[in-house]
């Protein structure tokens, strides 16, 4: 695959650089940053554990380099709009924070500088960069577009099954469900009683509906948004089976689930009101802390249940990339920061502070897996995910709005699964037609 071969080339390049550098002078962050001391960088952060971890690490970077990193925290829902407007207007942002589904948009508009520019610069490239150490799926999905890498994975998630072990044991289960069919046939009926529910699926009408709810039931059932010709695949038997399964599973979910976002869902598990949820790995620290969770001692973590087509867990997360609108000094300083904060050397500390690094080496230590019980499930999930869990092209912002509207209407029963899928498909194809995918003006990349 073109994408993977390119990432492999990058990995080789960085490995060669490591060899060369080892033989020559030792590279140091302090020396590399000297010409850029006093440079100020602007970046948007979110109010999530990974960013709070990075903020705690920032003083070390600033002390070592003299580069100041100014971060502005915005809600996720505003982050795309803020950045698009800033890049269109030629604003202040020097670093792009890229959600997996924004990479095509940002790259196609020329708002990012390819990583190669810096990796091939021995004065800026840390010999220990080791691109091959990133989980390949994560590096491909979060930071690469159309064969070119732009961003290094920074705030990394996989969908995991968080469960209340005590509640499961009380109902006679000694392990969490391994398949969605088990959830439907066994766990759902046994755990939905006395005002408690087996499962909560966050489905609010925003990106949560598209990413956490709709897509989650496409892939494990063999479905997908698009087929090989970029036509809608939502009315295929596999996609329909998955979406109908979601509909049927609602009998084991709390009433009003279409209004639930991450906060409500995590809280429901944390308060012991539901037996299990499928949520991003980033919520581990919230569910494990006795300050925010009443089930901290009962918390169990497993990979998401598998469907007929396998596990295919939800994949999400952010990379950091250098913005092309920054001047040369800011670009160099931005790269040094991105390289440092995502480095293998800092991965352990990032993890300790609540972040989730994408470095394979960080998870090799068995002691860490014992301390952070989500690690084995996370590593397993990152072996089985699909980069195009949600298409990552520039048209996704328009398509996700369509999915959000009809996805929630399906769940509410206002429209049948078949009709809803057909409506999404028709509107999605209109967006893709307009963008030029069917005329051959754009490559079929997602």
């Amino acid at each position, binding site marked *: 695959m073109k994408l993977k071969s390119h990432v492999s080339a990058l990995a080789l390049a960085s490995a060669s650089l490591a060899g060369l550098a080892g033989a020559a002078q030792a590279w140091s962050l302090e020396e590399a940053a000297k010409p850029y001391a006093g440079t100020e960088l602007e970046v948007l952060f979110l109010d999530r554990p990974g960013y709070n971890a990075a903020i705690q690490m920032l003083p070390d970077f600033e002390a070592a380099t003299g580069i100041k990193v100014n971060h502005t925290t915005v809600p996720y829902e505003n982050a795309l709009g803020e950045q698009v407007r800033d890049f269109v207007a030629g604003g202040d942002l020097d670093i792009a924070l890229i959600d997996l589904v924004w990479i095509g948009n940002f790259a196609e508009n020329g708002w990012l500088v390819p990583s190669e520019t810096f990796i091939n610069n021995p004065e800026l490239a840390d010999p220990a960069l080791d691109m091959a150490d990133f989980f390949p799926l994560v590096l491909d999905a979060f930071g690469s577009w159309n064969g070119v890498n732009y961003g290094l994975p920074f705030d990394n998630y996989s969908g995991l099954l968080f469960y209340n072990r005590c509640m499961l044991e009380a109902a006679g289960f000694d392990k969490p469900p391994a398949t969605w069919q088990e959830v439907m046939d066994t766990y759902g009926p046994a755990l939905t009683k006395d005002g408690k529910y087996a499962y909560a699926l966050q489905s609010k009408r925003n990106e949560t509906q598209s990413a956490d709810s709709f897509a989650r039931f496409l892939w494990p059932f063999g479905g997908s948004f698009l087929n090989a010709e970029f036509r809608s695949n939502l009315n295929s038997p596999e996609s329909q089976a998955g979406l109908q399964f979601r509909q049927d599973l609602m009998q084991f979910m709390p009433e009003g689930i279409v209004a639930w976002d991450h906060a409500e869902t995590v809280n429901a598990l944390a308060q012991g009101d539901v037996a299990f949820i499928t949520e991003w790995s980033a919520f581990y620290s919230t569910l494990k802390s006795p300050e925010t969770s009443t089930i901290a001692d009962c918390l169990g973590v497993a990979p998401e249940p598998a469907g007929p087509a396998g596990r295919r867990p939800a994949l999400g997360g952010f990379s950091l990339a250098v913005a092309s609108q920054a001047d040369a000094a800011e670009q160099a300083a931005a790269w040094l920061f991105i390289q440092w904060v995502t480095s293998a050397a800092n991965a352990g500390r990032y993890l300790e502070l609540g972040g989730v690094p994408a470095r394979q080496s960080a998870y090799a230590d068995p002691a860490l897996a014992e301390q952070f019980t989500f690690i084995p499930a996370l590593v397993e999930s990152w072996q089985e995910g699909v980069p195009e869990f949600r298409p990552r092209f*520039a048209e996704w912002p328009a398509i996700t709005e369509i999915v959000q509207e009809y996805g929630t209407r399906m769940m509410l029963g206002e429209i049948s699964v078949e009709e809803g899928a057909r409506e999404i498909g028709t509107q999605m194809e209109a967006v893709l037609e307009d963008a030029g995918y069917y005329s051959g003006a754009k490559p079929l990349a997602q």
Partner: protein
Amino acid sequence: MTLRVPRRTIAAFIGPAVAALAIVGVAPLLYALWKSFHDFNLTQLARQRWVGLQNYQTVLTDSDFWDAIGRTALLFVSAVPVQIALGLAIALVLHRPGLTFWKTLTRLSLVLPMATTYAVVGLLAQVMLNQKYGVINQMLGWVGVDAINFIGDPTNAFIAVILWDVWQWTPFVALVLLAGLSTVPPEIEEAARLETRSPWTVLRHVQLPFLIPSLVAVLILRTADTLKLFDMVFTMTRGGPGNATEFIAILIERVGNRQFDIGLAAAQSIIMLAITIVLARLYIRLFYREVS
């Protein structure tokens, strides 16, 4: 003797206001009008081009747009009559003589809902109406009523938006109508009360004619407010569940800020502006009469 003010002095006084209005009001409006004739998507700037009336054609044939207009109209006809009825009742009570201290206190407290930021009102609603942890359902539980799914059910969510809008804007209507009642000459009102003991007759034949300008102002302002109702609904339901509370301003924001289709959003906004102007003119023509 008539003092003639030099034109230059008049221009000096009016000029800054006109300039400010031109910069913050007219210029963006003209820019939006210009962009409404373009295919202008922030994420596809390379293909920016003049499309004439195509965006208007798209809007006028878009069922989502007309559905949102319908929901907005339903919100208006549901909420505003309640606000006027309750506001008039509050104004009449506050207009009665006596209890000065309590009336002052009431007037002050009436300002609070209006002074609360719209987005905060929406967030409060989201928390207070939460099915499991919200204070409203807890209070309903005290009187034996089962928890209501306010935000997750399309009909309930719509009703919740109406109730929240009534809560926030009834005080405004009350204060405007109270000001209107103060324009009724006391001697006419006293004379009327000597003629009849029926408060309804006094209201119908004496006070109401003086309230017409206030009511027209309320109608115009509440129409404009309803058409641009955004913050409260966005933070409360974000237009959902489904599109149960996707009012016109929420739709325009979605197209402009989340799909980045500025050209289409501009066309939607211009059409909304035209509707607002027509409605305002209609109110004035139908209802407004100078009180003689």
